């Protein structure tokens, strides 16, 4: 038979493609689309009511108290993103640079920097809650022990410091990831290029800013994009350390917590609104997808082939 090998091949390909496609459709595409759909209905608990068009979107964006909460959570996410850009990616770049330059103890520090990344967020959250405990936490004890007792404070309990405490805990947890990616990028730079720079300047700053940084830009694209997505999807660490209400007084409220609370109810279980929650989820998803796509597209353009 003439067509049979081709037919067998097609059957094979079909057999390999259909199951994963069905899986993705059922558990990824369908939930996303249904969340989109849910956002256009009114909800009574978990029972779907009538179609309301953009009413849920209008509610979370323009009616009080939702509008204030949305803006507050969004601005907190923006702060988290920029703070982590410096404290996580910036510090990660510097750490990678020092590790790459093989300063004494580099082998030990390479492991030490990456170790927290493999810890579960639950563990990191509890660990940092202990560190930051106002009375027994190692942070305040150290401050008091070194005569800086006046600086000791309830880090997680006041509006001015709570979000920053979470940001620092997150940076400590995840700094190993950008470090590793940047280090891999640096190790791809041929040694003779670095020798060539040394023949022209002894300035470490020129070397970093004019040669090393542009050449690790491909690593920066992925690190920036992932940090953006991670910052605006931020949920676990604030949930563990600050609770679902973003306490104190919504100082640590971020879009993830806010969505969860809106859809499933707050600490006391009240205020559940599935429609408004879905509308928030859709907005967050659209925002992340558009901006992440834009970042990737723009940064890709300046990547360099070594």
């Amino acid at each position: 038979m003439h067509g049979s090998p081709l037919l067998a091949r097609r059957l094979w390909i079909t057999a390999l493609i259909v199951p994963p496609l069905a899986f993705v459709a059922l558990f990824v595409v369908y939930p996303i689309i249904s969340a989109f759909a849910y956002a256009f209905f009114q909800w009574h608990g978990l029972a779907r009511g009538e179609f309301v068009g953009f009413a849920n979107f209008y509610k979370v964006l323009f009616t009080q108290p939702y509008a204030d909460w949305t803006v507050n959570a969004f601005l907190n996410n923006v702060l988290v993103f920029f703070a982590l850009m410096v404290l996580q990616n910036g510090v990660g770049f510097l750490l990678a640079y020092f590790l790459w330059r093989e300063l004494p103890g580099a082998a030990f520090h390479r492991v030490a920097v990456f170790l927290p990344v493999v810890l579960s967020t639950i563990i990191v959250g509890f660990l940092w809650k202990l560190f930051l405990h106002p009375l027994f936490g190692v942070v305040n004890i150290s401050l008091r022990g070194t005569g800086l007792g006046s600086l000791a404070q309830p880090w997680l309990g006041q509006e001015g410091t709570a979000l920053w405490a979470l940001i620092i805990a997150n940076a400590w947890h995840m700094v190993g990831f950008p470090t590793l990616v940047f280090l891999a990028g640096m190790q791809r730079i041929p040694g003779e290029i670095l020798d060539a720079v040394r023949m022209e300047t002894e300035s470490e700053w020129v070397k970093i800013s004019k040669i090393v940084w542009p050449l690790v830009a491909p690593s920066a694209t992925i690190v920036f994009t992932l940090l953006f997505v991670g910052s605006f999807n931020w949920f676990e660490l604030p949930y563990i350390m600050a609770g679902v209400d973003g306490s104190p007084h919504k100082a640590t409220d971020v879009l993830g917590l806010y969505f969860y609370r809106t859809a499933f109810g707050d600490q006391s279980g009240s205020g559940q609104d599935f429609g408004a929650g879905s509308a928030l989820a859709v907005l967050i998803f659209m925002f992340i997808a558009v901006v992440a796509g834009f970042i990737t597209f723009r940064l890709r353009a300046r990547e360099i082939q070594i």
Partner: protein
Amino acid sequence: MAQLTLSGIKKGFGPVEVLHGIDLEIKDKEFIVFVGPSGCGKSTLLRLIAGLDTISAGEFRMNGRRMNEIAPSRRGIAMVFQSYALYPHMDVYENMAFGVRLMGLDKAEIERRIADAAQMLRLGELLKRKPRELSGGQRQRVAIGRALVRKPQLLLLDEPLSNLDAALRSDVRLEIAKLHRDIQGTTIYVTHDQVEAMTLADRIVVMNNGRVEQFGSPRELYERPANTFVAAFIGSPRMALLDVERQGNRLGLPGSGSLSLTRLPQIDERELVLGVRPDSLTITTDLAAEGFKGSVIYTEYLGDNTFIYVRLGNGTLVSIRTADAVELAPDTPVVVQVLPDAAHYFSRSTRERLAA
């Protein structure tokens, strides 16, 4: 201008010493080639001169000034790397401008220097291209241009031809020789290829196992090799080195007979190494003639020359160059003779040259 003095230069990496005390005196405007087999330390020595690695012991002076602790960028030295090491994210112009901008030159001067270099190296059309859009030969010229715009007192080239294909290599070699004359500076060139060394150098530093075997002009190295290493390394095909025993004015090769030579070294040693280049050997099929007996392995006809490879009675393989188109079948028994005055003698124990 650059006049270099290296005294007692040693370099160790951890417990391993790779340079064991190098002494060199290099004059201004000289073209110096470091040559030797891989791992002999020639590139290490170049990196010490550049300042890319630190000198473990000894002193390097340039124009009388101690350089050991001076940063590479402050030595007035430019270097062309084996892989060219162009900055991939900068175009040709930026690659050349990067270093001179850091030197603090004004814009007009930078543009003038780059225009000069671009003209000299035929880079005019390429100034806006990125390195990945250039061929190997073009990248090489950019790398040289980047070195030249800095107007270095000393130009270092690390195996600059090794990444080029054979056809380009001899062209670029000529260009480098011309460039050295034009820029009137001192040049140090590292290679493992003795032909490059012989054709380019004013003086050659032959290195082996972290030591200088001989430092001299190509002619000195060829005509008066200081030891058996230099004798075998310089010249192609290699000089034959025969372990001979001396009896009066006769030199005997075990299993191969003996021959008498005039002007033997005035020394008591009985065991010598006789060195003869392919063009100083003759061959005859007259088996009664005086000389070393052997049999033909292979004849190589090259048009203007013929090389005949002969295995002597003690197993040594020698090559003989003749201008005649002789055709000798393999296994033909022959007698190999040495032209008087063309022989080199070395001590069997020290491998050093013995004065004839």
